[in-house]
C-alpha cells in the first residue's frame, strides 16, 4: 500500500557531526502526505522543521550531515537511496521548494523570465524560446501585472511580495507533486502574507500539488493545513488533523504554543503566556522528554524516560507520557509546583 502514498517519511533521523558534538537535528520524524493535501510543520526556531525538509530534498551537505536511520519514500521510491542524478530529476520537477527570503533567493544577474525558464529547460528540455513564453504565462498565473514586460526585469526591480510570487512561479513551473514552502511568508509584511497564502491555496487547487508548509505561525496552519506536525528539538511531539490538533491538543508543548498566541477577543487584562525558557541545544538534548525542563506538568518520569509517540485517537498522536490521560487536557491540567531550585536553573 505504501506505493500509493505520495510521500512517506518513516522514522527519519539525521544528525550533524560537528566539532562540538553530534547535533540531533532530525530525530525520528514520521509523516505521510497524499496528493492535494497540506501538511503544516510547526515549531520554534531550531526545532528541525526546515532541516527535515532539506533532508527530504537531499539538500543537506553530507558530511557534516548524516542520515542515521529511517527512510523517505516518494511514490514508493526511496529518495535517500537515489543517485545524485536521479534526485536531481526530482528536485524542481516533482518536488519543488519555496524559500523563506525572496529577497535573496533570486539570482541578481538574470532576468526574471530566464530564472523561471530554468527549471523548464532543465527538466522539460524546452527550448529557451518556449520556456520564455511559458515564463510569461506563469508570471500571469501568480498574479503579476503586465507579465510580458515584467519578465524582462531583474529581481531588484520587484518588491518582496512580488519576488515571492516569482519564487512560487518557479517552483510551480513543472507542476510539482509536492511543494515545500519553508516559511514562505515570514519575510513579508502581514497584508502581503495573506495574499501569498491565498495564492498558494488557489494554485494548489489548480495544479493539485501537495504542500508541506513549514511555519511557526499557528494561525497560518489553522487556515491552510489539513494535517499538522508539531516538532520540538528535532523530534515530532504531536501529529493530527487540524481539527484534532486545535480542538483537542494532546501535548503540553502544543498547549504552550497556543497559550502564547495573542487572541483578539479576550479582555485586555488577560496575559500572554509564553513558554518559559529556551529551546534546548540540539547537541545536549535533555534526558527523557526533551521538553521536560520547560514543561509545567513535568513528573519525575519525564526526565528519565523518553516518551514513545503514541496514537491516541484516529491518527492523532503525541509523544508525551500523559497524553490522552483523563483530565490531562489543555483546559484541565494543573501545573506541577516546581521546586524553587529548578526554577532558578531555568
Amino acid at each position, binding site marked *: 500500500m505504501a506505493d500509493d502514498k505520495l510521500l512517506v517519511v518513516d522514522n527519519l533521523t539525521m544528525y550533524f557531526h560537528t566539532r562540538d558534538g553530534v547535533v540531533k537535528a532530525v530525530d525520528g520524524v514520521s509523516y505521510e502526505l497524499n496528493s492535494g493535501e497540506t501538511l503544516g510543520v510547526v515549531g520554534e526556531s531550531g526545532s528541525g522543521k526546515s532541516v527535515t525538509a532539506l533532508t527530504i530534498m537531499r539538500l543537506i551537505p553530507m558530511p557534516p550531515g548524516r542520515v542515521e536511520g529511517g527512510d523517505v519514500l516518494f511514490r514508493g521510491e526511496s529518495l535517500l537511496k537515489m543517485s545524485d542524478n536521479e534526485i*536531481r530529476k526530482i*528536485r524542481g520537477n516533482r518536488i519543488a521548494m519555496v*524559500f523563506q527570503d525572496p529577497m*535573496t533567493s533570486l*539570482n*541578481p544577474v538574470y532576468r526574471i*523570465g530566464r530564472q523561471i525558464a530554468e527549471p523548464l529547460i532543465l527538466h522539460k528540455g524546452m527550448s529557451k524560446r518556449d*520556456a*520564455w*513564453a511559458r515564463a510569461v504565462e506563469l508570471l500571469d498565473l501568480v498574479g503579476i501585472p503586465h507579465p510580458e514586460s515584467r519578465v524582462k526585469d531583474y529581481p531588484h526591480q520587484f518588491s518582496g511580495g512580488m519576488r515571492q510570487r516569482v519564487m512560487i512561479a518557479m517552483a510551480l513551473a513543472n507542476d510539482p507533486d509536492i511543494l515545500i514552502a519553508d516559511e514562505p511568508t515570514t519575510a513579508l509584511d502581514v497584508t502581503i502574507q495573506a495574499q501569498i497564502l491565498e495564492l498558494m491555496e488557489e494554485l494548489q487547487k489548480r495544479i493539485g500539488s501537495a504542500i508541506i508548509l513549514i511555519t511557526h505561525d499557528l494561525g497560518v496552519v489553522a487556515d491552510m493545513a489539513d494535517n499538522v506536525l508539531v516538532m520540538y528539538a528535532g523530534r515530532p511531539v504531536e501529529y493530527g488533523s487540524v481539527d484534532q490538533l486545535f480542538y483537542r491538543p494532546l501535548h503540553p508543548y502544543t498547549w504552550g504554543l497556543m497559550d502564547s498566541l495573542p487572541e483578539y477577543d479576550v479582555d485586555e487584562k488577560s496575559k500572554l503566556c509564553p513558554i518559559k525558557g529556551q529551546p534546548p541545544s540540539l547537541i545536549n538534548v535533555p534526558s527523557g522528554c526533551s521538553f521536560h525542563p520547560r514543561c509545567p506538568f513535568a513528573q519525575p518520569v519525564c526526565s528519565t524516560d523518553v516518551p514513545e509517540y503514541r496514537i491516541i485517537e484516529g491518527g492523532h498522536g503525541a509523544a508525551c507520557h500523559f497524553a490522552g490521560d483523563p483530565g490531562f487536557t489543555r483546559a484541565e491540567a494543573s501545573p506541577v509546583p516546581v521546586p524553587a531550585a529548578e526554577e532558578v536553573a531555568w
Partner: protein
Amino acid sequence: MPIDDKTLVESAREDDSAPIGHHLETGGTPLDQVAAESGEGSRTLWSDALRRLLRNKLAVIAMAYLVLVTLLAITAPLWTKQLFGDPMYADTTKIMQTRFLPPSLAHPMGTDDLGLDTFARVVYGARISLMVGLLATAISVIIGIVLGAVSGFYGGITDSVVMRLTDVFLAFPYILLAILLISLMGMGLGPVLVAIGILGWTTIARVFRSSILSVKQNDYVEAARAMGASDLRIMVRHILPNALAPIIVYATMSIGGVILTEAALSFLGLGVQPPTPSWGGMLNEAQSYVVTQPALFIWPGIAIIMTVLAFVLLGDGLRDALDVKVSE
C-alpha cells in the same frame, strides 16, 4: 490531477512540441521580441552594464582617452617617422640644432637631449606601457582566477595550500622580487612582462576566492540546487557570473598599477632597453636635465599619470555599472 480551467500549465505539459506561439496570440507579445529577449541572458546583463557605464561621465572620458591612446600607440609606426622624425635614431650631426627645442608645430612636445621628438617618443612609450599593462594583467588574472576558483569551490586542504602559497608570495616585497626575477631572466620587455604577470596574481586569487565564498552562501545557489541544477551548472551559471564582477573591476584598476610598476622598473633600467622609448626610461633619461629642461620629465610623467588615472576611473565606473543593485 483535476484542472478545471485551461491554464496553460497543462497544455504546455501535455504537448511539449506544440508551438507556443498560439498561447501568446491573446497576450500580444511579439514573438520576435520574445525570442530576442530569451537569448543569452548574460549578454543582456553586459549590455545593461554598458548602458550604465556610458552614463558615467568620468568613465566615458577615461574610456575615450584610453581608446585615443591605444589608437595612437597601435598606429604609431605608420606616421611618427614621417611627421616627427624617427623617435629612436638620432642624427648626431645636427644634434646641436635639434636638441631641446621648445614645443612647436613640428615638435608638439619639443625635442629631447638627442634631438628626438618627445611626442613621438611618448606615443611609442604608450605601446610598451599598454602592452605590458594588458598582457601582464592577463597573466595575473588567468593564474589568479584558476587558483582562486579552485580554492573557493573546493575549500578544505586545497584552499589552505593555495592560500598559504599566496601568503608566501605576498610576504616578499613586490619590486624586489620582480627585480630578482628579471635579473634571472635577463632584462627587456619579455622578462618584465612575465615577472609582473606571475607576481600579480596573489590579490586576484584572494579577491576571486572570497567572492566565490560569499556568492556560494547565497540563497539563490541553494534555490538552484533545490531546482535540480547540477554542480557544474550551479558553478558556471549561478556562482561565476556573480563572482566575476569584482575581478573585472580589480583587473581594470590593476592595469594602472602594472603600468606604474613597469615604469618603475624601466626607470631603474631593468625594462625595455634604449633606444626603444618607454615612459619609465624617458624619466630616467630626463634625470640629468631636471632643472634645465623640466619638459623632458613632465611629458612622460603626465602620460603615466593620465593613463593610470584613466584605468582607475574606468575600473570605478565598471564597479558601479556591474553592480545590478546600485543602478536604476
